[in-house]
């Protein structure tokens, strides 16, 4: 297998348009993601964040425009497919399903194992190893519905990591998780990023918290509004354009403080 050249952009999205039925979801979106970036993708509900992630994954085919992931079109990744790890929105998961933590992580390897072949001992060891890394190995036999939201998140991170990916796509990873766990999760993600040399794209509508951890922010509301380090996004006032209203920001610096953006002409 040819090694990935690290200086290139991992993801190239070029003037992509997506319609869902007759509604325009993505309008002329272009985005390049370089190796090792930590990109936060924010925007209002229905702004197309999940759709953009699905375009990168090859689950949604753009009506116009071009997408390249690891140098291939997302539908034709072939052997490079394991290089992508994906964490779907948690409300898409059936938590009652009779699957254990280990079952779920093993599923992450099924695509690599190939049809008609049972999982090998190596697959199992890799799954346990990843569970060890996320601190969930003791609960490997537990049914997934019998975990806390934070633990569930770790299991699905483990599933995303079990193929040794280079690109991690996370769709609303902290939804439904309490604030303390959220902070821990972001820190953990930062550690993983350094340790495994990951490139991360994280979707969130919690723009204030996300801005403390990501290196770049992109705001999406049909259009991709900006693509810059978080401070620049806040300074440029483009958030207002995305959300169409005043935005209250809570930033975590050394001293947590609240920044309330004012309307133009206001006191």
């Amino acid at each position: 297998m040819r090694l990935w050249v690290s200086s290139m952009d991992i993801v190239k999205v070029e003037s992509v348009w997506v319609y869902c039925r007759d509604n325009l979801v993505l309008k002329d979106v272009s985005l390049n993601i370089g190796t090792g970036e930590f990109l936060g993708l924010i925007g209002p509900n229905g702004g197309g964040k999940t759709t953009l992630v699905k375009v990168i994954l090859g689950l949604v085919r753009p009506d116009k425009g071009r997408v390249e992931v690891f140098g291939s079109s997302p539908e034709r990744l072939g052997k490079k497919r394991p290089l992508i790890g994906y964490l779907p929105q948690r409300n898409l998961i059936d938590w009652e399903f009779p699957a254990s933590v280990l079952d779920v992580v093993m599923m992450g390897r099924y695509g690599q194992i190939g049809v008609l072949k049972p999982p090998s001992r190596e697959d199992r060891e890799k799954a346990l190893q990843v569970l060890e890394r996320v601190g969930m190995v003791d609960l490997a036999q537990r049914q997934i519905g019998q975990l806390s939201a934070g633990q569930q998140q770790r299991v699905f991170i483990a599933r995303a990591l079990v193929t040794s990916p280079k690109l991690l796509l996370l769709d609303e990873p902290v939804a439904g998780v309490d604030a303390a766990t959220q902070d821990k999760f972001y820190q953990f993600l930062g550690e993983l990023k350094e340790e495994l040399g990951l490139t991360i794209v994280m979707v969130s509508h919690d723009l204030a918290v996300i801005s403390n951890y990501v290196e770049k922010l992109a705001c999406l509301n049909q259009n991709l509004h900006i693509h810059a380090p978080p401070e620049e996004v806040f300074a440029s006032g483009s958030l207002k354009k995305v959300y169409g209203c005043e935005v209250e920001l809570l930033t975590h610096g050394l001293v947590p403080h609240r920044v309330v953006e004012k309307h133009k002409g206001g006191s």
Partner: protein
Amino acid sequence: MDIFQYVFMQRALVTAVLVGGLCAVVGVYIVLKRMAFIGAGISHSAFGGVTLGFLLGLNPVAVAIPFCLAVALAIGWVSQRGRIPEDTAIGIFFASTMALGVIFVGISRGYNVDLFGYLFGSILSVSSSDLWLILGLGLGVIGIIVLFFKELFFLSFDEEMAKVSGLPVTGFYYLLLTLIALTIILSIKIVGIILVSALLVIPAAAAFQFTHNFRTMMLLSVLIGIVSGVAGLLLSYQLDLASGATIVLVATVIFGLCFAFSPKRRRWWVRAVQ
């Protein structure tokens, strides 16, 4: 028991075990993947297939097999396209194929006595060629499930993620529809077109009350399916009741007990005792 001296009763018993077990295996996917309505839709469409067989003077089951497969794949195709919601698509196919069946019955002039057996099942009239068909196709269905066990497991849990992993998800979805359609046709002789979807759903739903493990759920479901089939058959014979309906009602009672005593819920009777 002396009732087993009759060959028809021996055949009925073997059929009850085979069909009860087969429906219970396929039913696990139907319950977990929330496909119960698809099952009902496909089974009712079998009415169109069976009556077409009568009209053409051919073996009704032989005609129903391609007919049901076509309907199953059509439902899958329409819902995959996403232009019409899946349940709407099923509702349309469900009713139109039954309407077609009614027209076929009319054209083939007069009321056909056999029809009642296909609608409500007639396990006592299972012939040895029926039995061989059930055994052969049934083993085929089970064999395919064993071969693609991990893929079907993944698909049932998380279709989108399976697709991201590079599995041919659409192909497996159609495969699952095919297996469901075949299972339904094989079961029609036993419980009938109207009741077959119950046999697909109830054992798996009952098994789900007792386990958090997929394989255990499968085994329990098979056990419940076989017990319902055999107990229902014997009970119907003793009490002189319709066998298909008795099998379904026995399964329903088992489900009721499993639901009431499920360890997954806080048990009312434990609290009442404390």
